[in-house]
């Protein structure tokens, strides 16, 4: 930081930026078509979720726009008022499934994204604290982590949801509570390796302030494996969110996430409205799968030794 702020440095700075862009491009070129496709789909899904209000014919969360007279229409049917076509059909309440899926994606992504980010922040902080302060702090944090990790996330989330009750924020809280230990464990083990590294000792030897040591030296170097955990946990969060919503322990029925759409669709399984089950599920799988692939490739890149 301190030394590179002089004026004649800007050219060099630009140079590195250019070259980092190029190396990013180089790097992408070396990935398989399949991986790139997955990345593209993932980014596309995010984009679609964000722009849902502008690219859907209907706001399925707005009661004034949805008409249950149009319930259970097959894909391709024109809406009762003739305004648009139900591309992927309509659900049992007359919601346009295509719109509902994009809005649901939005809900799913925002819940799992918020939860994963919060868990990342909390878990990382806890993990770094455990690694840095050692002793009782470490023991307390890690015992909590151990206990949590003894149980599958879905179970923990289920129990928390059944106590807190359904709802957007409760879901986020449940996911955060269920997922922070993964980050804490990773952050701690990475930080322990980093703390053992001599550059941290050097920083201590140079009497750098603790916050500088943790934020400038420890954190950036502990981040890459945490990013991998982040992507994988993001996918996991999306899956868990969907599962909980499916069990009726998730979001509100009025703003259905993908999981709830599937749950609704599952009730129509015998009555022949199978599109209500299949399309939301496909969207969910596409989301989780592409995030997982991205995470997997990230992991391989960051840890070439373990190509699993």
């Amino acid at each position, binding site marked *: 930081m301190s030394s590179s702020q002089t004026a004649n440095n800007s050219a060099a700075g630009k140079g590195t930026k250019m070259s980092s862009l190029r190396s990013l491009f180089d790097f992408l070129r070396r990935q398989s078509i399949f991986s790139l496709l997955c990345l593209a789909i993932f980014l596309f899904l995010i984009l679609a979720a964000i722009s849902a209000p502008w690219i859907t014919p209907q706001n399925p969360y707005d009661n004034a726009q949805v008409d249950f007279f149009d319930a259970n229409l097959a894909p391709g049917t024109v809406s009762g008022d003739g305004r648009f076509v139900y591309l992927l059909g309509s659900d049992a309440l007359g919601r346009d499934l295509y719109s509902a899926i994009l809005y649901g994606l939005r809900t799913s992504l925002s819940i799992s994204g918020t939860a994963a980010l919060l868990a990342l922040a909390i878990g990382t902080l806890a993990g770094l604290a455990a690694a840095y302060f050692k002793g009782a702090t470490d023991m307390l944090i890690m015992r909590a982590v151990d206990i949590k990790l003894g149980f599958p996330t879905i179970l923990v989330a289920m129990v928390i949801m059944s106590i807190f009750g359904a709802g957007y924020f409760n879901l986020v809280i449940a996911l955060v509570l269920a997922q922070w230990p993964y980050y804490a464990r990773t952050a701690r083990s990475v930080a322990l390796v980093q703390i053992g590294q001599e550059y941290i000792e050097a920083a201590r030897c140079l009497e750098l302030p603790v916050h500088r040591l943790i934020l400038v030296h420890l954190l950036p170097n502990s981040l890459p494996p945490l990013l991998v955990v982040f992507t994988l946990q993001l996918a996991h969060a999306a899956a868990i969110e969907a599962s909980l919503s499916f069990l009726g322990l998730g979001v509100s029925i009025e703003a259905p996430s993908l999981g709830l759409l599937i749950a609704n669709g599952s009730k129509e*399984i015998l009555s022949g409205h199978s599109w209500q089950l*299949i399309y939301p599920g496909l969207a969910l799988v596409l989301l989780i799968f592409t995030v997982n692939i991205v995470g997997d490739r990230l992991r391989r890149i960051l840890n070439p030794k373990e*190509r699993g």
Partner: protein
Amino acid sequence: MAAYLFQRLIQAIFVLLLVSLLIFMGVYAIGDPIELLVSPDSTVEDIERARAALGLDQPIWTQYRIYLVGLLQGDLGDSFVYNQPTIQLILQRLPATVELGLVAFLFALLMGIPLGLVAGYYADKWADHAIMNGSIFAFSLPNFWQGLLFILLFSVWLNWLPAGDRGEVDQFLGVSSSLATADGWRHIFLPAFNLALFNAALIVRLTRSSIQEVMSSEYIRYARAKGISNRRILLRHAFRNIQIPLVTVLGLELGNLLAYGIITETVFDWPGMGQLLINSIRLNDRPVIVGYLLVVVAMFILINVVVDVLYTLLDPRIKISGSKS
């Protein structure tokens, strides 16, 4: 060893107490289940009477104390809804869950290990890529959706296999199990496969990465330099090593099977413990919720201990003593 077991015991008690307290309080916070239990035309006195009968009129701490005292005597309390001892309810449903879990476990192993070996052996070849991406796909499939699709496909459209329930049960090794009848097997196939797929994907990945890691390790190269046959290298040197990570993960898998079993049981209407939990949550049946979780927690702790012990048997480097070194 004694010290280790003692330590685990203390920890287990501590965790069980903590879980029981948290869940007890949590479920209390949701509310009492009286409204759901009484018949719709009950009068106010009826409701008060029922509340007193279940001890729900006591302050929460008194309730918890009574529960704890019972717990110390091995009594998990009676279900509000079923009017039966919780433990009996759980034990009644245990065989269904266990048989589903075991069959799924078997499926997962049968699918996972061979595929993992193939992928590991042909590392970075097309077979490997196909298997690995396939496994990512398999564990990206939300369990419940995949189960519903199975039902849609195999039960509704093709009408090959039944979609729910346990089918006919008969005595099998002393417990009533659907593994004893052909009909039972027809019923268990879809749910077990549904439950197994996710775990199979994990086993594939684990087997593959362990095999690959082991095969690229220095001691395998050294074994080759000694002129040992490939067969022996794979079956003795490599396999002996991957048993260790495999056992750990299989322990976790069992946990996963229990947890995801809840969803599979819901989807396929399998009358196991998971269904019991979900129903109890719906009905706010506190003794069953707390009891179920305590039993599950105890099972998890047991699995962990068994895994640890197996670990020491498999890995000569680790000795159980206080903590792993």
